[in-house]
């Protein structure tokens, strides 16, 4: 087994808001790990926190609590400039919309990461030409983003992500806004990269086809993983499975119905621990008095943090 490329433990994220609904807790104590060269899909309903997770894993967003280790280094505690350096060497992002720079041609868009990385222009230009060729968009190299079709734009975005030769690609619904044919060719491209160059993938998707490409899928709901599926798992069956994920960080995530059956959130003590088997029982007194996510003291018997909405541990 290859070493761990990405390892996140206890991720909480709270979006503060002044709207009536109050704060939004997008991530609730998530943990996830990814090995080098592994392809993982993240699935889940809209608003589950997939994009937030992706941003937190890639260092675009600092989670409210928790640790993200990328290539062995904790990126939640890095200075901005250092973080940029580290990210540059390891990850690239692909979004649903190309997110191309509107004033630059396709070629200049692809060239831009190398410019930021300080790669000499001549070498960078050669690499870009090669990359555009590889993705089959050489003829459109001088077009501006607004002149590109959806598929071309997305391929340009992919080229831009690949040009830095990352070890990990974080993709947020990469095929979400292209037609099925283009989507298929993009996925073929991903597969090729995955197989030939051993690039690791974490892909957020709604698409079965994309999930198929992954070695395993993680299902996210309400800011928590509710299930993990192997390659043989059918997407339709997800809701029926009662498999729980005990992740590498040691976190166990329960679906809400299971939680309810257990008697709601609270403190549990280990009653029986053997290999492959764990029995928990509820501790009825003394509960944690401060919120894990935002350090606000709990008020009385609340089960949810009044400040950030996180569940009481």
């Amino acid at each position, binding site marked *: 087994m290859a070493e761990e490329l990405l390892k996140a433990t206890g991720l909480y994220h709270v*979006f*503060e808001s002044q709207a009536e609904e109050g704060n939004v807790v997008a991530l609730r104590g998530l943990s996830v790990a990814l090995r080098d060269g592994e392809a993982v899909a993240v699935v889940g309903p809209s608003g589950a926190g997939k994009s937030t997770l992706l941003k937190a894993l890639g260092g675009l967003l600092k989670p409210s609590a928790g640790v993200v280790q990328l290539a062995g280094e904790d990126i939640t505690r890095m200075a*901005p*400039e250092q973080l940029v350096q580290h990210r*540059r060497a390891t990850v690239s992002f692909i979004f649903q919309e190309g997110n191309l720079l509107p004033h630059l041609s396709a070629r200049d868009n692809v060239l831009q990461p190398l410019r*930021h990385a300080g790669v000499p222009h001549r070498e960078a230009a050669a690499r870009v030409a090669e990359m555009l060729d590889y993705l089959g968009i050489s003829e459109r190299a001088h077009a501006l983003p607004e002149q590109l079709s959806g598929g071309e734009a997305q391929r340009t975005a992919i080229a831009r992500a690949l040009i830095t030769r990352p070890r990990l690609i974080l993709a947020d619904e990469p095929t979400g806004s292209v037609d099925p044919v283009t989507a298929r060719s993009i996925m073929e491209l991903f597969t090729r990269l995955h197989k030939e160059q051993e690039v690791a993938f974490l892909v957020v998707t709604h698409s079965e086809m994309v999930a198929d490409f992954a070695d395993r899928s993680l299902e996210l709901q309400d800011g928590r993983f509710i299930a993990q599926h192997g390659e043989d798992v059918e997407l339709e069956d997800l809701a029926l499975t009662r498999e729980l994920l005990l992740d590498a960080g040691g976190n166990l995530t329960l679906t809400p119905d299971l939680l309810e059956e257990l008697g709601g959130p609270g403190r549990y003590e280990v009653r029986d621990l053997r290999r492959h088997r764990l029995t928990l029982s509820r501790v009825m007194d003394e509960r944690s008095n401060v919120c894990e996510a935002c350090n606000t003291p709990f008020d009385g018997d609340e089960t949810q943090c009044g400040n950030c909405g996180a569940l009481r541990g």
Partner: protein
Amino acid sequence: MQAAAREFPDRTRLALLSAWRGRSRGLAVFAGVFLASLVITTVLVYGSGLMQIFFLNYLDDEYYDFRMDFHTDIGGKGRTVDVALWESYCAEYEALPEITDCAVAAGRQGGHGAGWFTEAYLKPQPLELQAWEGRDSDWSNVSVFLFEGNEEGPPTRGYRPLRLLGPSAYDGELAERHASRLLRGEWPDGGAAAVEQRSVSLPSQVASMADATVGDQLASLTFTYDTDASKGCQGEEVFWQQFSYCRVSVTLENLTISSIFDDTIVTSPITSQQPVFIPWELVPVENRSAIIAGDHAYLALTIDRTALPTESTDSAEKELDRIQRSLDSVALEGETDLDGTHVIKDLLSWLRIQNYFIQIFNYIVMIPIIVLSVSVLLYGLLLSLEQRRREIAIHRVIGGGPDALLRMVLGELGVLAFCAWLAGYLLALLAVPLILNAVGFMQFRPGEYDVSPSLGLLATLATLVVTVGLALLFGRSRTRDFLEQEISEGVQRVVVKPQPRYWLHWLLFGVGLIALADSYIESLANDGRLADDWEKGIISNPVLNGIFAVLGPFLLWIGGALVLARLGAMAPGMMQRLLGRTAALRDIGRGLRGSGSAEGVGKLALIMLLTLSIVTMAAVQGYTGMAVDERTASLAAGGDLKVEFQQPLDHAAALATVSVALEGTDVAASDIRLVSVPLIAMHPAGDEYSVYQTWVLLDGSREVVRWDRQAFGGDPGKTLDRLAAGGFSYGEQLEFSLGEQPQLMLNLTGGAPGQVTVSNVGEHTWHPGLDTDITAGGIFIGEASFRTLVGDGAVDAWRETTWFVELGPQGDAEAQSAVTRALAFDSSVSKVTSWDEEHREVERNGGLVFGTLGLLTLQFAVATIAAVASSFVFLSLVLTQRKRELAILQAIGASEWQVGRLVLFEIMSITVVSMLLGTLLGVGISYAFNGMFSLFGLIFQSFGGASTSVDRTLVWPWGELLVIGLAVLAVVMLALVWTTARATRSDLARILKGE
């Protein structure tokens, strides 16, 4: 380093490319920096140009730049009486690179001390003309005395001075300077020719008194000089004031008048009397030697005046001092010790004080426009950076570090701002000469002054730092914000927009309103429309009053704009409430409810208010200033011309004299009209002891005299009608005795019988062309009353010395000056004042400062451009931001026209309301500023020596303001149509998808 150089072409290409492709958002920044640079540079350059003009103006009146005199007093060391040696010194001075010409000269004795009103200042006397005798014309009554001799400068005995000029004054630079002042004849071509011709050059006043022309001969001319009396006086001993002089006289014979020069140009006080010029070599050698011994001789030196630095008096003075030091260090043959004196040194210190006041005033006047351009700059930056937010986020995702991104944004901003600065700077350099040549608000007479004002390196850098620096500083803090926000997007911290400090806006506005009320009440009280108790306004403490007078207008302006901008931004809502019931606007109301563009549009309202209030203020003050200048000119000249004759003349004789002077102009004798203001003495029937000076306003005076509203405080035509119908008006000093009398029965004083009854038509302030102080103590009556008193015959044959002339339709500036010049040669005329020349004079010294109208024109133009340009730029930015919103409206079924109408309604109501409010605010600040303008006007008038203070009654140019308002509206419409069309036509799906 090397790597950076290698990457340079690619990076530059990229920066230029994205600057170009992102030009619409760059436009706002460009416009802001451009305006700021234009305005700030103009104000600075204007100061330097003004100094240059003053300097050149006064320099022009001087023939020489330096004079060299003996260092010691008569009888001291280091002197010589050797004529040949003295004449040889010029060669040594001309060897200095700075000196362009040098000539031996003799005239007023050199002073060997410093300071005014010391012996060294009071004792020196000129060469005095004692007698002359004509050959071709009669010179017997051409006086050698100057009556105005003691008016300016150190006292003299009152004889007309004489100046002897060495041969090199007849060639080179000195000859050019003399030749430029000639009215008739030629300056002799070289020293030899001057001696051979026995040339004499006369002041025009002398020539006109003698009725002499070029080529006429003087049989003899006698002058005296003061000489060294240490070994006994050879001539006549003269005591004058507390000094004694030994005067020797010289008589020259058979002189020929070679030229006549313009003696109306006022020189510096030291040399204010106009001399007669005669070649030095015509004087016998032994006299020349005595003239040298008597301290009359000096060396007249010229330098290249265009090489003098003129950006400040200090630098000019430094340069002059340097030249003076190098002159003083020249070692002369025979160990003679000469001192250089700079001729206009006294002038310089005077100029410095005057310029100081002018600059302060101009800086104050330009503050609003500077504030305006800076705020355009800041808002432009704000909007344009806002549009980069997403782009910066993308860059961060693909590996751009915060520092690199900051550099990138600032690099682009820097290039853009630099170009804008350069454009503004260059335009300012081009515009300033034009501004300095402004003769009125929006009126120019180019070419009158040839100045090439420039800015020193330091000042140039200052404009660069202030404009580009400001843009970069602001851009940096904004970009930093974006960068920080992006990394911690949404985490823990929600950016709460601080509430604007409305209480502060209201406070500023309130204080400004108090100042306005104070200044308005003061002006009402001064006009007599309010009781005198109100003369000090609401604030009577003088210090507080001064602070309010200067700060008030600005507080009113800024506070008013901030407060009223909210009102402007609320306009769509209010309009909708007003018009919402109508069918056409019902769906608009629905659309508006959802529109969330209030912030951007609120800023548009603010900018509109700021600009239009300045436009209004500049136009009002500009036209008012022009009216004040014209009023001042009318006060001095009365009509097109004011001709004062030596003796009283009747209408026919005066007309005949003036008609002769029309020769060579386009004015026909039949076009001109003349009128005098007969002055008689009258007393009330039965009270012979209270005599009133009475001026008769003849019927012709209506057309000839340039009447003004201020003369009677109201429509002058009406008052003139009532005077003609048997009325009288009284001067200010008679208010007590006559103010309440409805009727007066008047008798002629001094012999002749005659009685008339006149009715009171009110007070008069002044009569154009007459001395205000004197008319304030008398009364005016009409022609009919006059005829009743003295009879038709006497009226028609009435003689007066002063006649006002109207030159008719052809009487433009050129004709006026030609006629003035011709009349000046007429021996029966003692003085001619032309309205046009008076007007020019006033523009320079009077009313307000020289070129202030030009500055106001600039302010007006810049504010107008800013109003038009910012409405365009801001609208297109605001609408680009609203693209999505408009697309949604379209997506849910609104037609293009409906969307267009919605936007049109919203923006137009804001613009129109803001413009109206802005104009209103402008009216307010015009009043508020008026106090300050009249204060400074007074200061400058006292510098210029004008005595009568002229009212600054505001003039309201509504027509111009309307045109500008319409122009702004038209541009707003255009911008709207353009941007809305762009927004509605672009791919809906793409817009909705994006961001």
